[in-house]
């Protein structure tokens, strides 16, 4: 609506980078609490079914998980580099790094897809016959695994879309070296997605 605002009066075009950042941090708070609810559920059930969680966690492929962690951490780096590039007024480099971030995110999702397919192939998915015959601790572990990594994956997909929009904004000159708050906020969101994964990874893959 900037164009609409510009029509009536110049002073109406209100730009407040600090406000935008504050709003973004508040939103990240809500995201943390959203996932916090699930981490809470996880810890309650881990506490009540320690043995079964221990055994079920061995089913997960640590190598794929580690690989995905590296991919996501690297994508956070490329995200930061794209912001650093736009700050130095290097539009092309910034777009390149944003593209790289998307590429890494896609890699992450592809890995996730294969990881899930293998599990599905073994008959381990919510509501499957194999799983329903297991003990309740196993059902809970894999239930949480699918829901939490699924919701995280959804956030990765949303991130891909937003970064793609940012690429367009950068090339069209909406995101520039002196007005890059949109890209910066996208970066904040992307780091949140990264941080949540950093907690998911040890909880599901490493603690066995």
């Amino acid at each position, binding site marked *: 609506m900037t164009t609409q605002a510009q029509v009536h009066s110049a002073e109406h075009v*209100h730009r407040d980078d600090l406000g935008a950042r504050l709003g973004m941090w508040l939103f990240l708070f809500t995201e943390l609490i959203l996932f916090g609810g*699930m981490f809470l559920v996880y810890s309650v059930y881990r506490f009540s079914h320690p043995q079964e969680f221990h055994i079920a966690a061995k089913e997960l492929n640590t190598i794929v998980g580690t690989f995905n962690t590296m991919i996501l951490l690297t994508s956070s780096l490329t995200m930061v580099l794209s912001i650093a590039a736009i700050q130095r007024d290097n539009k092309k480099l910034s777009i390149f790094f944003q593209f790289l971030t998307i590429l890494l995110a896609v890699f992450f999702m592809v890995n996730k897809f294969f990881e899930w397919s293998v599990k599905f192939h073994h008959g381990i998915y919510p509501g499957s016959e194999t799983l329903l015959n297991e003990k309740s601790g196993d059902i809970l572990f894999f*239930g949480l695994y699918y*829901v939490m990594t699924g919701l995280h994956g959804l956030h990765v997909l949303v991130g891909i879309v937003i970064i793609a929009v940012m690429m367009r904004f950068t090339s069209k000159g909406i995101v520039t070296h002196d007005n890059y708050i949109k890209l910066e906020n996208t970066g904040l969101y992307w780091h949140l997605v990264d941080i949540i994964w950093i907690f998911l990874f040890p909880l599901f893959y490493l603690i066995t």
Partner: protein
Amino acid sequence: MASDTVALGTNGHEPSYLEYQGKHKGILGWILSTDHKRIGILYLCSVLSFFFMGVVFGFLMRLELISPGETIVTAQTYNKFFTLHGVIMIFLFIIPAIPAIFGNFFLPILIGAKDVAFPRLNLLSWYLYITGGLLALMSIVMPGGPADTGWTFYIPYSVRTDTNVIYALMAAFILGFSSILTGLNFVTTVHRLRTPSMSWFKMPLSVWSFYATAWVQVLATPIIGITLLLVVIERVLHVGIFDPALGGDPVLYQHLFWIYSHPAVYIMILPGMGIVSEIIPVFAHRTIFGYKFIAFSSIAIALFGSLVWAHHMFTVGMSNAGEFIFSLLTMVVAIPSAIKVFNWTATLYKGSIELAPPMLYILAFIFLFSIGGLTGVMQGVIAIDIQVHDTSFIVGHFHYVMFGGTGFAFFAALHYWLPKMFGRMYNIKRAKVAFWIIFFGFNVLYFPMLIMGWLGMPRRYYDYLPQFHPYHFISTVGSWILILGLIIMFTNFVISLRKGEKVTKKNLWGGETLEWQIDTPPTHENFDEIPVVEDYPYVYKDNEIAVEEEKV
């Protein structure tokens, strides 16, 4: 709206926000507008529509209960009625009522801003609200019928029932998202957009309570979001997180549900308290008593209110230590609430009290909220709570707090601010008549619930023993009186919008806050120049003038 009836602004110079011609014309000028005032009006229309729907379901429930056994509907339909009544009244009316309507319209004006921090996000949250509302309505018409779980969606029944629970859950999820965005917007607005001369302790008290509410919205709503989403996933995918048949824990669901839903009670009541603090000094023509205490008690309520959720679950099973702590904290919340009540009554002391319609509703608020609050403290005592848990005593209690509190504050705000919003005055005499009918009907409707609940009448029951018949009968008659009053009140408003006396005076009631220093109705930009605030807004230096100014 009245946009096409007047060509020029009511003051002859700048057009008001109602007449302002933006990029879009007609209805699009409303549903695509990012002006906080127009979005406030959008909320006003949609929230009131849902309110009327909620009233209808409440009316039908009461009608069914007028005599024992089947009266007008089957037990199954009755369950759907109370679920719809609860879901609509809580998620679609009382949570958004004051913040989304009056917060949107007046928060920026009260702090001397031209708009909220994120106008487009503001419009988005209205669309989310509408989407959530439509989903709730779809659950009624889709095969399977509306949910019959009660608004709490307790597991395991909400996983087993064949009704459209998913629609209701998704509706609540999306409405929660809308509520989060409004809260996020308001927190940022209060931090960033106050007029430079307005320091924190020069803010009007309603801004303080909108601010506290916004924080609760931001911090508590995501929990209910994820919890309801997990129930949806449970129903669709059978992941077992809550379903006891698969190893899940239904009590965990209750904890997660109330971690949000108790703070949500304060999302509902805090804005109402803000309205009271705003209106009382104006009609007592006197400085508010204990400004800082009222301001900080809002924050204290928001803080302590987030730590008491398990008092909804004393009968579910908890450790003794847990019960003790939650019982204690529940009583602690009464302190900041009482601080407010005492400050309000102290403000009235030696004031020059003018019983205009908004003030009548506010005085009723203090009375009804005190009954609701005290019955609430009673339930904080575990021994009593176990006695009255899930009885109509609870129903009476929370209607006294929510309807007698927030509902009456909402009506007060309507009478206080609608003339400012539309530039048309309602009929004062009719408003007062409506008030007395509503006040009388309200007590006839809800007081018997307290008595029969105490005697053991369970809530949500379709049938009852003959000894409860007189109470149910009186209560149902009360609902008719209340609805009659509501009809008179709202027809009064509708008539006033069409034929009401035009008002152009800036200060309608003699208030000292910023909205009374701008045009009636406000112009698109609210302020011609950035307002300067010298003192906190309740200094009645020109008290005499305010009193003598001709009454509207």
